[in-house]
């Protein structure tokens, strides 16, 4: 072969490889290959007939090469011509280095090219490219195949686990929704009942109260009557009637308290959310709860431990509701610790209520921890339900914690209960900062 013809062959072959590496103008590929060129690329879909197919693959490579820097070296490993020197087979190994921002990658491609000479130039009539894989002594790539299989199985297992988890989360969310729906309709129902009961109850309370006043007046009138056995008997009877009326009034007042709590519970968002100094609010209402407890029929000595984040300034909350929340948690803690004192009868037990407040990028965190009797597992998930109470007789309405939970939810927060029987109970309120400005 004369040197001119060989030079042309080398150039065409070089340009053809360059075109694959995007270094030769794509639109001029027609100069390098015959119209009906056929070739195999390295991927399964790269089975190309004609110039257009080749161009579209190269376009795909261009699209994928954004942010990539290509470097390559070519090593020719075999060359042969036919007798007339019009057909040439050239086999080369192309080592491509792909440089991207997350590191370098090496790609080794074997390219066999068949070229034909037409009067003045050489053109590629067929090529075949393949990627050599690292599977030593494994002609059928069994190990690789098994590895891929294992990898796939692992992926499937992982996805299945994720799906199962989402499914469980969905179920939990659904349960919660159903629960909330039930509570919402219960709320409407109770509001209706509460209002209907409130009026007759007012009459019960008013008339019993009034009758006590009238009896007192009757006693005054009786003083002007001469003493007799009959008068004694009347006074005794009237005293019994008065005591009964007091009982009616006492229980009526108790029922009125329940009705009021029910109305509070179902009342839709009264009070307004406004920037409130949280720590002073906590201090004030803890103090109020403490004095309320001291004045009640079951006072206890309590150590109150305030651990408040002094960096907290004004926070957007519904202060009316939030103060009720503080009162409820404190009252609950005092009642629980009172119960423990009675049960334990241990002089060394010092009831302690610890209140913590924190503010960070996740939002607001407030915790109320008492060292009372704790909450047994079997009732832990019931204590937030309306009308659930462990307090006997007239002591509890069963609405305090349920109401408190509603207040937390109304602030977009969550209430978490940590407890250990005989050790402690800790109510944790978390209110996420949806937008940072709301905490300024």
């Amino acid at each position, binding site marked *: 072969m004369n040197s001119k013809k060989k030079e042309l062959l080398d150039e065409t072959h070089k340009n053809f490889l360059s075109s694959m590496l995007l270094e030769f103008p794509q639109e001029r590929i027609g100069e390098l290959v015959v119209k009906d060129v056929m070739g195999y690329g390295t991927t399964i879909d790269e089975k190309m007939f004609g110039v257009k197919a080749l161009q579209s693959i190269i376009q795909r490579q261009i699209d994928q090469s954004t942010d990539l820097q290509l470097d390559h070296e070519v090593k020719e490993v075999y060359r042969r011509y036919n007798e007339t020197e019009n057909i040439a087979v050239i086999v080369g190994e192309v080592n491509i280095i792909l440089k991207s921002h997350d590191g370098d990658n090496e790609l080794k491609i074997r390219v066999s090219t068949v070229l034909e000479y037409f009067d003045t130039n050489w053109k590629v009539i067929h090529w075949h490219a393949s990627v050599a894989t690292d599977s030593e002594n494994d002609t059928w790539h069994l190990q690789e195949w098994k590895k891929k299989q294992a990898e796939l199985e692992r992926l499937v297992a992982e996805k299945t686990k994720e799906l199962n988890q989402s499914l469980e989360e969905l179920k939990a969310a659904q349960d919660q929704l159903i629960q909330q729906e039930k509570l919402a309709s219960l709320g409407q129902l109770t509001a209706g009942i509460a209002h209907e009961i*409130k*009026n007759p109850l*007012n*009459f019960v309370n*008013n*008339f019993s109260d*009034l009758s006590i006043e009238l009896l007192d007046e009757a006693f005054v009138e009786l003083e002007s009557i001469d003493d007799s056995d009959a008068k004694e008997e009347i006074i005794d009877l009237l005293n019994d009637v008065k005591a009964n009326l007091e009982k009616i009034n006492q229980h009526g007042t108790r029922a009125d308290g329940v009705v009021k709590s029910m109305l509070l519970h179902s009342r839709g968002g*009264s009070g307004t959310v406004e920037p409130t100094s949280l720590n002073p609010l906590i201090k004030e209402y803890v103090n109020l709860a403490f004095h309320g407890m001291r004045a009640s029929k079951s006072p206890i000595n309590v150590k109150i431990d305030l651990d408040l984040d002094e960096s907290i300034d004004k926070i957007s909350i519904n202060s009316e509701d939030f103060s009720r929340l503080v009162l409820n948690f404190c009252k609950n803690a005092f009642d629980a610790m009172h119960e423990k004192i009675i049960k334990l009868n241990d002089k060394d037990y010092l009831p302690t209520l610890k209140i913590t407040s924190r503010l960070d990028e996740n939002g607001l965190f407030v915790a109320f921890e008492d060292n009372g009797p704790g909450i047994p597992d079997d009732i832990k998930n019931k204590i937030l339900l309306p009308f659930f109470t462990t307090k006997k007789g007239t002591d509890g309405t069963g609405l305090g914690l349920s109401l408190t939970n509603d207040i937390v939810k109304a602030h977009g927060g969550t209430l978490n209960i940590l407890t250990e029987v005989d050790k402690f109970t800790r109510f944790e309120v978390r209110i996420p900062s949806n937008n940072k400005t709301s905490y300024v």
Partner: protein
Amino acid sequence: MKILIVDDEKDVEMLFRQKFRKELKMYDLELVFAFSGDDALEILGSSNPPEIMYIFSDINMPGMTGLELLENVKDRYPQIAVSMISAYGDSDNFNRAMNSGAKGFFTKPIDFESLKKEILDLIQK
């Protein structure tokens, strides 16, 4: 002095009469009762000008509500004082009553002490 009390609960009459027993004896005070807004307007219209000086009305009543009665009375007899008595102590009712010219707003259960004070203040004027 005549005071009109409007409430759909008929037992209100017995309760008020007993609660104000002493005051009814001691002062020139007369209690009149109406069991609906329409009843109340009829009583007011039975003499010209009406003898009633003060109206205490419940808000939640079948037919004409207390707030409608308030507007009606203020429209026809602006000289008569009207106060509301309601179990619904919410700000909506309160604001509406005050904006319509109510003199006072009492919540149920009624605090008779403050009600007596309100009435005695009026008598002493």
